[in-house]
C-alpha cells in the first residue's frame, strides 16, 4: 500500500532558525492522521511543505505518490486544504468566492457547495469580510471538502467553530475516511482531534517527540491529581505516595477541619497506583485534570532530549 504522504528527513530552515528537523512521516490511505503540538512546533510548516507553498531545505516529500513541486497544479486539485490562518477580505460574497475556488480546484459536483454550506450553517450571500471568524472558517472547510479530494490537509480546522459545528465537522471527517479519503489535520489541543484521529504525531520545536494512537499518548501524558482523604495521617500518606513511581510533586497538607488531608500530585501515565494508595483512607473528593498538552509535550520533549 503506497502511503498518501511520505516524508523523509524533511527539514525547513529559515536562516539560522530551523522550523522543522528531519521529519519522517508516513500517512496511510483511508486514515485520519493528527499532527499535534504547541504553536511554533512546525505543524503549519509541515502542511505548507505538502502543498508546495514553501519548499524543503533538505529531505524529500511525496504526496499521493508525487513530489509536490513536480506535481504542481494537477496534484493540488486532488488535495483539499484549509490554511492555518484563514483570512478572507473583500466585498466578494461567500458564494462568489467559493464559485471562483471551485473553478480552480478539482471537479465539484453540482449542489456540493450548497449541501456543505447548509450542513455547517453557513450563509453564502454575505460579503466574506463581514463574516465572523467561525463563518470564515466554515468557508475554508467548504472549499476544502467540496471536490471530495483523495487527501484533505486541514491546519487547525476547528479554530473559531462553536461546539455544535465542531461536532458536525468531526462527522464530516469520519465520513470522508469511510469514503476512502485520507485526512491530515493539525491542532494545538489534543482533545480537539482525539475523537477523530486514528494516529497522532506530536511535534515540538520542529521534531517529533511522540507518535502513536491517541490512547497511547494519553496514557503517556501528565495529569494533575487532587484529592481530599479522611482517616489517613498526612505522614503515612506522604510516605506511601513517595513509594509510587508514577507520582511526583507530592504535597500532602492537613485540612483545617477534622482529620481530612489535602493531597496534590502530578501523575505520569496511569492513575491506578496513586488512587489505590489514596484508598487507604476514605476518599472525599478526587479531581484528575485533563492532560495539559503543552505540559505533556514539554515532558515528552525533555524525555526525548534526555534519551539522546
Amino acid at each position, binding site marked *: 500500500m503506497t502511503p498518501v504522504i511520505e516524508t523523509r528527513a524533511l527539514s525547513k530552515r529559515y536562516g539560522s532558525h530551523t522550523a522543522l528537523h528531519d521529519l519522517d512521516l508516513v500517512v496511510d490511505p483511508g486514515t485520519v492522521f493528527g499532527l499535534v503540538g504547541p504553536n511554533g512546533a512546525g505543524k503549519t510548516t509541515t502542511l505548507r511543505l505538502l502543498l508546495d507553498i514553501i519548499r524543503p531545505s533538505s529531505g524529500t516529500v511525496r504526496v499521493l505518490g508525487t513530489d509536490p513541486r513536480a506535481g504542481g497544479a494537477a496534484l493540488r486539485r486532488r488535495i483539499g486544504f484549509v490554511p492555518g490562518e484563514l483570512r478572507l477580505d473583500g466585498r466578494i460574497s461567500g458564494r*462568489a468566492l467559493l464559485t471562483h475556488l471551485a473553478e480552480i480546484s478539482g471537479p465539484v459536483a453540482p449542489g456540493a457547495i450548497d449541501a456543505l454550506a447548509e450542513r455547517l450553517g453557513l450563509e453564502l450571500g454575505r460579503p466574506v469580510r463581514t463574516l465572523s471568524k467561525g463563518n470564515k472558517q466554515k468557508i475554508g472547510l467548504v472549499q476544502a471538502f467540496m471536490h471530495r479530494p483523495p487527501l484533505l490537509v486541514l491546519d487547525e480546522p476547528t479554530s473559531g467553530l462553536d461546539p455544535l459545528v465542531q461536532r458536525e465537522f468531526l462527522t464530516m471527517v469520519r465520513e470522508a475516511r469511510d469514503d476512502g479519503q485520507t485526512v491530515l489535520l493539525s491542532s494545538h489541543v489534543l482533545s480537539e482531534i482525539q475523537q477523530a484521529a486514528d494516529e497522532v504525531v506530536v511535534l515540538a520545536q520542529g521534531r517529533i517527540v511522540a507518535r502513536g494512537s491517541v490512547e497511547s499518548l494519553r496514557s503517556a501524558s501528565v495529569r494533575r491529581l487532587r484529592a481530599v482523604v479522611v482517616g489517613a495521617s498526612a505522614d503515612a500518606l506522604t510516605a506511601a505516595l513517595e513509594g509510587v513511581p508514577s507520582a511526583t510533586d507530592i504535597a500532602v497538607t492537613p485540612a483545617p477541619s477534622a482529620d481530612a488531608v489535602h493531597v496534590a500530585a502530578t501523575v505520569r501515565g496511569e492513575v491506578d497506583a496513586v488512587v489505590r494508595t489514596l484508598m487507604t483512607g476514605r476518599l472525599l473528593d478526587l479531581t484528575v485534570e485533563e492532560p495539559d498538552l503543552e505540559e505533556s509535550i514539554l515532558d515528552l520533549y525533555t524525555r526525548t532530549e534526555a534519551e539522546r
Partner: protein
Amino acid sequence: MTRVEVRRGPLPITRRLLGEGFRGLIGWGLGLTAVALLYLPLFPSMQTPELQGLLDSLPPELIRTLGYENITSGSGYAQSTFFGLMGFVLLTIAGVSWAGEVTGGAEESGRLELTLAHGVGRTQYAMEAALAVLIKLCLLGALAWAVVWAIDSPAQLELDPGNLLAVVMSWVGLGLFSATAGFAGGALSGRRIVAVGAGAGVAVAGYALQAVANNSEDLEGLRAFSPYAWAFGEAPLAQGWDLPGLAALWLGSAALVAVGTVALSRRDILG
C-alpha cells in the same frame, strides 16, 4: 436559496481580479476624466499674448523642467497638462497600486496562499495577474483616448486622432512600465510596500532623469535611461508613432513581468 453553479472558463485568476477591481477601475476612470475635463477646455482661454509673455518671463530651466516648451500648441498643451503631468501621475499610481495588490498585497493577506493551494501554478498566477493589470491600464487608455478626442473640437486642440492613439500607447506603456517594476518588486519580495516603492521609484527617477537631461546638454545622455523620455521624448502627440520608444516601454514591461514570474515560482510564499 439559489444553487451555486460552477462554470469553468479560461483565465480564472484574471477574471476574478477584474471582477473584484471593477469598482476601483471606475473610480480611476472618473478621476482621469475629471482631470482631462478640468485642464483641456482651458486651452482656448490661454491663447493670449499675456500667457506668452508670462512664459517668456519664466526662467527657461523651469519651462524645460515642466516640459512647457510647446504649451502654446494644442498638442503641446494636452501633452504638458494631461499626458505628461496629472494623467501620468494618476495612471502610475493606479498601475503601481494594482501591481502591489496582486503580488505583495495578495501574499500578505493570505489570499495567494489559498489560491496557490488549488489547481493554479505559480507561473499561471503571475501571468494572469499581470494580464489583469495590463487590461485595466489599457481600459484607462481607451477611456483617455475617447475623452480627449471628445474634448478636442470644443477645446480647439486640433489633435490628430492617429497621433492621439500614438500618445495613448506611449502613455499606457509608461504606466505599465512602472506597474511592472512594482510587479517584479512585489513578486521578488512578497511585500506590497516593496512593490509600491519599486514602481513609484521607477516613475519618479524616470521623470527626474529627463528633467535634468532637458536642462543640460552634457547630461542629455541620461534621457536614454528615462522611461518618461521613452514615452514622450519624441512628442508622439505632435509627431506620431515613436516605435523605438514604444518598444523600450512595452518590451521592458514584458521583461519585468518575466522577472517577477520567475521570482514568484522559485521562492517560498510568505504567510
